[in-house]
């Protein structure tokens, strides 16, 4: 008899132990081939949750250059593999279709965005930083004290960033003379 017939669930049901066709007899090939995607990932990175400051360890599974799963790192003494709803939604966060992946630019008085090349945007921003610094440079304050600074450039943010990033941000702004550098710790 053809193989297809031998594999026919009803025959498996009648010839095997699963006489009611509830379990072993009705398994589909796909069910038999089930593999958790954590097992087939190309790599696993040891990461840390990006939301609150508890610092839960995360395991980030990547397959074919896509994040396929993020879950708690059982080794972490902080969270012991557990995550809250936000931590559990981390894959959704990093793979959200709403993420911006291109530069958007709104010109003065414009009513909509236009796309902008990343390197051009960087050039434009660098130009504006230099201009704002030059235009608002303050060597002495109103009491003739030496201040060497600009009050024309401000920044807000850092609590969601890495230490290394905050270090470079503060270092660069300080060298520019920009001092209105703030983050969530003031809020």
């Amino acid at each position, binding site marked *: 008899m053809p193989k297809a017939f031998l594999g026919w669930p009803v025959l498996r049901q009648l010839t095997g132990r699963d006489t009611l066709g509830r379990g072993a007899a009705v398994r589909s090939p796909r069910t038999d081939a089930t593999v958790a995607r954590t097992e087939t990932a190309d790599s696993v990175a*040891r*990461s*840390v949750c*990006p*939301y609150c*400051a508890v*610092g839960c360890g995360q395991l980030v599974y*990547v397959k074919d250059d896509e*994040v396929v799963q*993020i879950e708690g790192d059982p*080794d972490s*003494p*902080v*969270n012991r593999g557990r995550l*809250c709803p*936000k931590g559990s939604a981390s894959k*959704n966060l990093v793979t*959200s279709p709403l*993420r*911006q*992946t291109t530069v*958007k*630019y*709104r010109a*003065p*008085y414009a009513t909509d965005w236009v796309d902008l090349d990343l390197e051009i945007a960087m050039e434009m*921003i660098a130009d*504006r*930083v*230099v201009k*704002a610094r030059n235009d*608002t440079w303050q*060597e002495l304050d109103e009491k003739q004290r*030496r*201040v060497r*600074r600009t*009050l*024309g450039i*401000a*920044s807000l943010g*850092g*609590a*969601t*960033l*890495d*230490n*290394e990033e*905050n*270090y*470079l*941000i503060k270092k*660069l702004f*300080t060298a520019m003379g*920009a001092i*209105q550098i*703030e*983050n*969530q*710790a003031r*809020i």
Partner: protein
Amino acid sequence: MAEAHPVGFQWVMEAKARGAKVIHVDPRFTRTSALADTYVPIRAGSDIAFLGGIVNHVLSNELDFRDYVVAYTNAATIVSGDFRDTDDLDGLFSGFDPETRTYDPSSWQYAEEQEERSAAQADDSGDTETQRETAAGLQSESHGMQVQGNPPRDPSLQHPNCVYQILKRHYARYTPEMVARTCGVSEEQFLEVAQAWAENSRRDRTTALVYSVGWTQHSVGVQYIRTGAILQLLLGNMGRPGGGIMALRGHASIQGSTDIPTLFNLLPGYLPMPNAEEHQSLEQWIDAVRKPGSKGFWSNAGAYGVNLLKAYWGEAATPENDFCFDYLPKITGDHGTYRTVMDMIDGQVKGYFLLGQNPAVGSAHGRAQRLGMANLDWVVVRDLFEIESATFWKTSPEVATGEIVPEQCRTEVFLMPAASHTEKEGTFTQTQRMLQWREKALDPKGDCRSELWFFYHLGRMVRERYAGSTDERDRPLLDLAWDYPTHGGPGDGEWGEPDAEAVLKEINGYEVATGRPLSSFTEMRDDGSTLGGCWIYTGVFADGVNQAARRKPGAEQGYVAPEWGWAWPANRRMLYNRASADPEGRPWSERKAYVWWDEAAQEWTGHDVPDFEKTKPPTYLPAEDAEGVAAIAGADPFIMQGDGKGALFVPQGLIDGPMPTHYEPVESPFRNPFYAQQANPTRKDYVREDNPMNPSPPEEHSEVFPYVFTTSRLTEHHTAGGMSRYVARLAELQPEMFVEVSPELAAERGLENGGFATIVTLRSAIEARVLVTERLSPLRVDGRVIHQVWLPYHWGEGGLVTGDSANDLIGVSLDPNVLIQESKVGTCDVQPGRRPTGPALRELVADYLRRSQGTTGEGERP
């Protein structure tokens, strides 16, 4: 804690399973309350009255841990006879100047050699107006007070001017009756908490105090935490396992961004940004930190400062040019985020970078935030999503009201897509000061880039534009040490990704000649032979190994888990842990053993890295004229404080007084039941027409805003929603802005569950769906019933789920020590139905202004 830090809450549940009693004090019944043994509803803004009542309970019943208090706190230290308390001056301490609304703290100083000291210490303290303007309190996150000489002590605690007696008198009026009257808590519930706290403390037991940083968002925020500190010191709960004060911070690396600050008044490692008045030379700046002649660990500040300058300016920084100290810009007052926003409205700021932050929704007084941004030349928004701060010019409520017209708004906006936490490597510092290195999982897509990439290349390009400049003012940029190695990643060639580990090595510090990473900040030299970007982080690259990347499984370590990540300083997991042993160096009890003196080995040992000089014996007594670290005795655990003692009374460093005192919130429906002084007299106000405050007693018309509101987070969302409203699986869990009201208030104002309500303050009016719930209950305060409403603050007009922003309701009035806004309590009106749209919204607010005659101009505020 269950609401905002659910995974941390597992440890509370574990403690509870082992017999701990969990007490939750909160204006509203939350998910934490649901799991607590006792829930105590309280009026928002009355925490000092409540905790002060417990201090009074402890002191009047002599329930303090006396051995600990005498040895480890300044309870025995005698204060100047000139000191006058709020009891004497009806809510003010001695030294108040009504003109500047600041204190001269010289009468708060310790007694001995008072004449001399008041000069020296008043100098230490500097001008308190300047201190307020520069958020000097934030430096005190690790700067203790400086103490010279040896102030007199009375270990019997009987001297009428010893700190213990002053404290006892100060809190004597914080009786259970007054707590009940002020906080709306029953005396029985208050006493239950007070007794539980006291009974579960001292030699064999410890109590932990956990707060989330809503505590900081008050006009007396620092003093809230101070009250907790006083209580924990009196009960012997500091520096001991199961004790302490734990701040649960709300962002993945907000601790890191305070340690390595993107803050106007700080440089890495809590070194102050120099100010133009006092710090025009390296020596002045260093001396301002180390205070020559003072005791404690800040005496090495010269090395920390020089290493930072050397890390910034590399070869250009030499002993001859004071290591380029002159390159540092100088601050001249308040340059905080709220001051800056006012300056934007006034047209003084040109450009603004927003880095993973959404002030259009997340900062107090949203309208001011957005009007400020609409008056800039340019904004660079770096974020994962198209957040409201990137679209203020077309979608903000002010577009609807006509206050922002896109065709007339000149602000250029660059929305730069950011890399996520999985797409870059680096360290976060979590809320217990622990650094954890994240491995990069994959490259970011498209134009998404890390901040490391953005700022490295921005710096490179700006430097290129100044190349060849002979203008002296451009030297700080041109001499900047900015040659970080790059490698592949999202960009190639000159657009490569900088090596985060190389940056971390610079932060750690190394020997300039050999490149050998430093293992401890004690290796830092002030001669330029070493450099390091953040002295408290030195050791994270000890032995050339990235210690933050350590991942020895928790199950294979003891409960302190010292081999997972790395904690500053020196991998200590608990600060001041010398206090876990008695003055002789023995554990206070076997149950609570943590760090102790090993007599045989002649060194400190235990479960953690001792927060003490390893071989300084408990019996060590400093010479009379000792300075710096050598002046800290073997039985003085609080080594960053000048006298090594925990400060029950703070003679220096606080703008608003040496002891916490109950003041009403800036907006309150009540007169201060304790004193004539209504609100914090030293708070930082911005008195402007665009920042009106609702009137409070004794001002008239406070009844126009009869209700108290408070705000906080929901488990399902994250702060201003930039990381949750754009994420479908979170957005669907709490899809709409809502307001929680009690059934009694719903009846009073005709609010229907599921319907809409409009909440009004003098800043704006917002609408929200109504959740009528018994989780809020009216309280009886000062003889009358008060309703409180609660608002989450996660929504704006962007994302998958939208709603009005609670921050639009909040005015800007700041704690004087750290310049953080009072956003956890205010007054409001609540009306049924939806708010008006378009220009009618502003008309509604204007009508309230007319009716309440709110404070908008110059004038005395209570």
